[in-house]
């Protein structure tokens, strides 16, 4: 049995999940006192392959964000947060000052130099891919500690392009 707090549309639901299925492809959950039957296709499906569920008599085609920040169903999108009540340590929210390439592409413009102080949200550089310009901005207020690329550079995914040292660090 797992105890979860699921926040959806700003309301939090406390859910108990039986760890084993009650029948083939069928799980039982308690949501605030009520018991729900959930059918999931094919018992050997990984979570990422789940495309639909039937909750009692309600079928849902669901696209789950793999990191469970949102789900989408029936043309609507919902923000989601899940907390495992049996796990007390929250994962730290990583937020360093490294500007990494979010996608591969080409640097077309660089707006900052090393040593410059900048506000959070200030433009750092432009990365072009799929015929679109993507503006990379400072994640925090601070000082540019390095700029590693010049306009025209082709960059790979996650390549560190620049670094900003946050104020007060």
């Amino acid at each position, binding site marked *: 049995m797992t105890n979860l707090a699921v926040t959806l549309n700003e309301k939090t639901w406390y859910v108990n999940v039986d760890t084993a299925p009650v029948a083939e492809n069928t799980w039982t959950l308690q949501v605030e006192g009520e018991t729900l039957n959930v059918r999931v296709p094919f018992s050997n499906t990984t979570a990422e392959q789940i495309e639909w569920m039937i909750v009692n008599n309600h079928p849902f085609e669901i696209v789950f964000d793999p990191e469970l920040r949102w789900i989408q169903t029936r043309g609507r999108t919902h923000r989601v947060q899940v907390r495992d009540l049996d796990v007390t340590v929250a994962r730290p929210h990583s937020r360093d000052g490294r500007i990494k390439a979010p996608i591969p592409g080409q640097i077309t413009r660089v707006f900052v130099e090393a040593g410059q102080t900048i506000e959070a949200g200030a433009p750092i550089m432009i990365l072009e891919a799929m015929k679109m310009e993507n503006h990379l901005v400072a994640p925090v207020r601070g000082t540019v500690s390095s700029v590693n690329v010049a306009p025209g550079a082709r960059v790979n995914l*996650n390549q560190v392009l620049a670094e900003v040292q946050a104020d007060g660090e």
Partner: protein
Amino acid sequence: MFKKILIANRGEIALRVMRTCREMNIPTLALYEASDQGSLHVRLADECVLLDAPGGFMNGGAILDIARAHGADALHPGYGFLAEHAEFCRACENAGITFIGPPARVMEQLQPKIDALERVRAAGIATTTFSMPCADSDAPLMTAEANALGYPLLVKSCRGGRGRGEFFVASASELPDALARAQQEAHAVYGDRRVFLEKAILPAHQIGVQILGDAHGNLIHLGEREGSLMPGTQREASNQKLIEETPAPSLTPKQRARLWELALEIARVFGYVNAGTIEFLMDDAGNFYFTEVKARIQIEHPLTELVTRVDLVRAQIELAAGAPLALKQADVRLDGYAMQCRINAQDPWNQMLPSPGYLRRVRLPGGPEVRIDTYVYSGCQVPAEYDSLIAKLIVWGADRAQCRQRLERALGEFKLIGTATTLPLLQRLVRDAAFVDGTYHTQTRVPQLEMDAEAPQTVRDLAAAVALYHERAQQPLRAAIPTRMLSGWHRASRTLPE
């Protein structure tokens, strides 16, 4: 008819052209770059050649060499790339290869955008207000021109097209940067740094009239299309249309008739031949301003095909072969309503970042009056090297309400898993009041993606689904395929600083 048509494009439009060629029994020759070898336009062609030349689909010389080497006697450029490149069109004519589009003498009149605007104005038709062209050194002159036009305004490439090299300028302080960027982009895309200024019309309606002309002086229109719904603000460069429709909801019958008439007049100014679109802006007072002629097949052409049942690509091919128009104006029947959504591999949750990669699952909508134009399929790659349009959904309805309902229904059936797409944004948009009422314009803001209201019971059920997903995700993987491995680098697009 032609012996073999080289399709100098890729993706959905290459496939669109190929479909008509096959129905006409004309063999096709496809081009592909290495990253695109799995695309349907390659798989379904009669012949395909690896395009291994600098500039790729912009390399007209290499493409003409391939055409000659493989016996193609005609070439379809699609949209983008070389579609509105007068010099390339002329080179095709000189090489004895029919360019499927307007003849070079028409292209050469349209390519210098300022000249084209001036000729239309000289014919007594209102155009947008514009400045002199500007090369690098003319910046001080442009400031004067800008002050004369008044703000807000747009900086546009003198070659133009595809919304590239176009920048919005709200006030004088933004002008130098916009000029510099526009010139840089115009140079990169069109090989021509010259830009000009155009007075912005806000709010406006962006409406184009589809025309067909033959070499024998016959000219007809096939109604209009409105494409005023755009994702970003005017100041964003990626100002692409999201949803288009026909007939334009903003027009009265009287305005519509006037617009059609204007379009035919303008086409005659240039002696227009083949398929094209005469583009206008309409201001709040209902005045029309000519902006440009799109001398090619447009992304939104299926709208017209749905209400007229005319195959526009077939018309392009027949007209390029010198055939007279198969239809008279009186034969053109505009029946019902059509709407088109553009589905892009971009992440609406993350600043519309491009999201190429592996598409694990593709499931297309079907049923009555639903059309899909796409190059993707389950298990394909969306290459990072090209633009982000991966599919078009086009629906027809007897009235506008049915058409919109059908669009909403079909979007709900669409399934694309593996890369982020604009589907969630489109699903939100088609339920937005301004779209439902048909009262939107170019300044209508696209709603933010956020929590959507649902019945409490549905929310409870979804909470249960989420809990079970979470529980299953904690368990060791049981299946043989580590999906995360297959799903490509697009996942990481989340690390973009906010």
